[in-house]
């Protein structure tokens, strides 16, 4: 008898689990069942689409917005990660620096106007900036900034922003041992920067002052030096001032900042540049995508950073809308190991800079995608292999399935070159053509393909969707290749990139700007020795261009250099992009308005423009 009771109970238990799952899914089955790829769960590409039908049915906006609160405007923003409070440029680290500034706490020297999509910033037309006027002396090679008066630090003890503060902030950013991302870029043109007679005086290098400094020092890249107080540094010392929450000038004043957890802030109503609508703004870190979605649906958070494929679900269930941020990024992969530098052209940090002995530079039969620079046969064979790998993958299908049709499988080359640009070359685009792939493999002598080591970083979803990357591997398997996937965290693998050990295929995006159109004067991202790279190094003649591009004043010339350098990557198909995916944020219906800054990095920005429904 016993065991029958037992069985019954187990059955009941299983049923309970089943019911759990079923009850949480029954509402959505309509969207998920449809296998037709394109039509499924697709809010149109102009995504802001408040679904009128579901809005009243589910959400009682009064629930989280107590009636008495109509006078205050409060917002909670859910993000995957909150960085530590570091407000000294010298100590900012790569993945964190943009948040402090873009999120409305600190400010850079200049501020570009909000631009709608497509991203197109009018050059040299900044919004009201800290720099009120400037003088450029071409003969003496100097630049002088006059600073706007009356910009208050959050703590009145630190006074207002003056020339001393600006010079201090830039000098900290360029200091020896600085981890500031743009330290080298500043050092490339600045000899010295100091406060003189209430103005900031810059001595530029012989190559000239940075021509487009107004854009470069703005929020455009979200990567510029934040202006912090020298008084705070003097009064509190390095340790205390770098984490001092009032050591800033932004439209929001942080009151509590716990890395990995929350940031609480209040709006600065008399802000000099752009007073916020909000009374308070809170960031909360919620790492799990599904939990962020749940919190948004419940109204616990009002804005959230979600992968495109989940935005539709969140919008539908919450009755809210979606907001695009920034342009699309090409999702694809590097065929790494192409370390073609002949000399150690930049004098890099750390070990393993001997270009002749790059550990990953193995151009042997087990690594047929790596070409030996100078050996035409090897280069040609490797190129065929790389192209074959591209022809195996169906971008259209990837876009429809993984990105819910929200992206685009249109031609896109490394660094964002598109067919409408004069520089475009048709051979840059690798279409889906399995027959061509097989023919290329045959020609290269690898008819049965080969063992493809493939690294998928699962944790940097802003950069690369791991599901997309795994689907690419599936196409390669279908093409007859044996794919060996390694799915380890990006940061865990990053050191092997730095040390030039990496010689695998690895999933990444087009790196950097949305498109060269918008980065007209911006130097391209060129991998250097001793640094992060896409698993390749340029041969000398191109590698040596880097400092030249950094200092080139003429934007047409810069663009030509860009074409030369990044076009090289596209020519050789070291990077192949398959889908251009567009970043979205999901908005709760209580959010009335938000005009995010459409910079080239899809991060949250312009919180002062957020308005809540009353």
């Amino acid at each position, binding site marked *: *008898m*016993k*065991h029958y009771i*037992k*069985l019954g109970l*187990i059955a009941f238990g*299983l049923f309970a*689990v*089943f019911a759990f*799952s*079923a009850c*949480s*899914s029954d509402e*959505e*089955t309509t*969207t*998920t*069942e*449809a*296998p037709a*790829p394109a039509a499924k769960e697709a809010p149109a590409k102009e995504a802001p689409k408040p679904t009128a039908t579901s809005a009243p049915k589910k959400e009682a906006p009064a629930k989280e917005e107590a009636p008495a609160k109509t006078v205050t405007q409060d917002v909670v923003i859910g993000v995957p990660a909150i960085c530590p409070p570091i407000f000294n440029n010298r100590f900012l680290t790569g993945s964190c620096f943009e948040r402090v500034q873009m999120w409305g706490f600190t400010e850079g020297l200049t501020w570009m106007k909000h631009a709608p999509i497509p991203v197109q910033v009018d050059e040299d037309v900044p919004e009201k900036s800290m720099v009120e006027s400037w003088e450029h002396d071409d003969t003496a090679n100097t630049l002088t900034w006059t600073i706007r008066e009356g910009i208050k630090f959050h703590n009145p003890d630190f006074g207002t922003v003056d020339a001393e503060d600006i010079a201090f902030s830039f000098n900290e950013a360029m200091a020896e041992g600085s981890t500031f991302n743009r330290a080298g870029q500043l050092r490339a043109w600045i000899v010295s920067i100091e406060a003189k007679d209430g103005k900031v005086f810059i001595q530029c290098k012989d190559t000239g002052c940075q021509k487009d400094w107004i854009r470069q020092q703005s929020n455009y890249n979200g990567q510029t030096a934040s202006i912090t107080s020298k008084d705070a540094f003097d009064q509190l010392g390095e340790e205390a001032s770098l984490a001092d929450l009032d050591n800033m000038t932004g439209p929001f004043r942080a009151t509590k900042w716990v890395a990995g957890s929350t940031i609480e802030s209040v709006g600065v109503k008399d802000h000099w540049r752009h007073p916020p609508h909000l009374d308070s703004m809170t960031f909360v870190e919620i790492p*799990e*995508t*599904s939990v962020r*979605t749940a919190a948004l649906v419940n109204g616990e958070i009002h804005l959230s950073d979600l992968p495109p494929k*989940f935005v539709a*679900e969140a919008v539908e269930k919450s009755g809210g809308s979606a907001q695009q941020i920034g342009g699309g990024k090409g999702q694809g992969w590097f065929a790494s190991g192409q370390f073609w530098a002949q000399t150690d052209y930049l004098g890099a940090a750390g070990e393993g800079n001997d270009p002749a002995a790059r550990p990953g530079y193995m151009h042997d039969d087990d690594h047929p995608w790596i070409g030996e620079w100078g050996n035409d046969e090897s280069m040609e064979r490797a190129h065929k292999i790389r192209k074959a790998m591209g022809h195996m993958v*169906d971008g259209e*299908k*990837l876009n*429809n*399935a*993984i990105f819910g049709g929200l992206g685009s499988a249109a031609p896109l080359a490394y660094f964002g070159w598109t067919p409408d640009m004069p520089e475009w070359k048709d051979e840059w685009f690798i279409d889906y053509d399995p027959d061509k792939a097989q023919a290329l493999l045959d020609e290269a002598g690898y008819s049965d393909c080969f063992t493809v080591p493939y690294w*998928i970083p*699962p*944790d940097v979803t802003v950069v690369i969707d791991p*599901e997309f990357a*795994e*689907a690419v*591997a*599936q196409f390669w*398997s*279908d093409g007859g290749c044996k794919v*060996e*996937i*390694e*799915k*380890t*965290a990006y940061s*865990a*693998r990053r050191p092997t990139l730095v040390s030039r050990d990496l010689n695998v295929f690895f999933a990444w995006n087009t790196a950097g700007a949305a498109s060269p159109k918008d980065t007209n004067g911006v130097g391209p991202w060129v991998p250097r020795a001793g640094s992060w790279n896409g698993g390749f190094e340029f041969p000398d003649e191109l590698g040596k261009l880097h400092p030249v591009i950094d200092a080139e004043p003429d934007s047409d010339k810069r663009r030509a250099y860009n074409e030369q350098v990044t076009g090289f990557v596209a020519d050789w198909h070291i990077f192949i992009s398959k889908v251009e995916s567009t970043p979205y944020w999901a908005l709760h219906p209580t959010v009335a308005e938000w005009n995010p800054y459409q910079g080239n990095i899809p991060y949250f920005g312009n919180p002062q423009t957020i308005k809540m429904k009353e």
Partner: protein
Amino acid sequence: MKQLQSSWKFVRVYPVVPLILIGLLVFAAVFAELITTNNGEGGDLFYRNFPPSWYENGSTYYILGADPLGRDVFARVIFGARISLMVATIVLSLGGLIGTLIGLIAGYKGGQIDELLMRFVDLTFAIPFILVALVVVIVLGQSMSVIVLLLIIFSWGAFARQIRGESLALKGRDYVSIARISGASTPYILWKHIFPGVVNTLFVIGSLRVGSLILTESVLSYLGVGVPPPTPAWGAMVSDGRDYIATAWWVTFFPGLAIFLTVMAFNFLGDWLRDYLDPRLRQLRE
């Protein structure tokens, strides 16, 4: 009627249900290729999150639906049995061997050796396993063998602790003392007299640890250092599908169910073994 009654009795006394489940598991693991033609590693994106066959628009080809990459969930669950069973067998036999050896020696020798070995066991408990696993995978790279190795390191301590207790108790038995006095060597006594006394415990712990092994594997996948894709491991399937719990429940449910049934079967078997092998309880039962 009488026949029915006797079969009831049979089912009541012997662990029929768990054994059937384990039998199915072993069958699935060994003959996976015969059960399904699809090996679960390849998929077609067109069938992304395709619903199970009983849904209106389901298909009999994907009996239990398809996952986000269009891979057959059924095939993955079946082939996952092979992975899980293989991992469990290797880890438990090697972990059990090491743990038993150390437990036997510690319990039998006693004194300083015992203390030393047990503190060594403490050491393995005192270092958070998950952090060690992260570092090791980062350094050595992600592979099945690294994960198996880590799980062995993680599992021997529990065996050592239990076996030590048992062997401590057995040591005091008359027949062991007699053997010792008559000049038998330590390895001989351990092998002939002590080891047979702890075999039961060994089996019981082994059967009870299957579940925690599979769950640990799933946590490793969750943290991004688990069994590398596209290998169908149950834990990795549940972990990778967790974003779709609300929209495509079948992606995580069926591997979860497989874990559940396996853990249940081994637990019941372990319980039964414990009852059965403990003479005192057996007496009570009859």
